[in-house]
């Protein structure tokens, strides 16, 4: 395919002033791909361990004692999950044609970040509370 090299290209990321809508879009891609790789593989590993037996599950759990690595990864997956969930819901609302007003769009873009952090905090607060009681 012939292409005239002197034709103008559309301006790329560098020329835009960063705003919440832009950030939620790129973050949705990043966490989506993190979930698709790390998240999905940990899910498979966990299902395999449960299906295989106590030793396999104990090995998975041993990573929680290795400098808290298991917790770091799981909290990361939880935050990525909620960020992708809220970012995804925002996408579905905008696909339906709603939420394009400047102030509303900015507000809900910021709310996906707030919501993801709050939801992650709630889930892990619940887990740690139960662990201390149990």
């Amino acid at each position, binding site marked *: *395919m*012939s*292409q005239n090299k002197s034709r103008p290209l559309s301006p790329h990321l560098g020329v835009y002033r960063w705003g919440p809508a832009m950030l939620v879009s790129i973050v949705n*891609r990043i966490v*989506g*791909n993190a*979930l*698709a790789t790390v998240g*999905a*593989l940990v*899910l*498979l590993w966990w*299902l*395999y361990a*449960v*299906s*295989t*037996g*106590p030793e396999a*599950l*104990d090995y998975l759990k041993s990573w929680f004692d290795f400098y808290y690595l298991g917790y770091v990864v799981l909290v990361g997956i939880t935050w990525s*999950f909620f960020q992708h*969930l809220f970012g*995804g*819901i925002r*996408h*579905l609302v905008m*696909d339906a044609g709603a939420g394009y007003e400047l102030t509303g769009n900015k507000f809900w873009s910021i709310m996906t970040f707030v919501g993801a952090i709050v939801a992650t905090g709630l*889930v892990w607060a*619940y*887990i740690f509370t139960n662990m201390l009681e*149990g």
Partner: protein
Amino acid sequence: MGQGTGIGRVRGLGSAKHGSHHWIVQRLTALGNLTLTLWLLFSILTLTNYEHETLAAWLSQISVAVPMILMLISIFWHLKLGMQVMIEDYVPDTALRLIALTLLNFYAFAGAIFGIFVVAKLAFTGVAS
């Protein structure tokens, strides 16, 4: 049909009529993920403990194994579509892109089948002791 520019070669041919398929399926699997992952989250959080015995008994139930398998299908389908878009956007080299897309397809299918198999194995045969 022209032989020159890209637009010249396709002008007048009309739509192939399946341009929106990828987009639609990504939304449908998103709704599947939304429902099934929230089910998994609340299901896990309401378990009394995370010992193997509890988890294996929980996962072998029909009411857990079936939505788990559905979730695996929805998740791996969705991640295949999503990572495909990333590769198409960020890997400009044609050969590298083809390799990346091929590996992605292997990963998505192998991952989904592996997950479905281990869940089904546990549900059908229990834990080997």
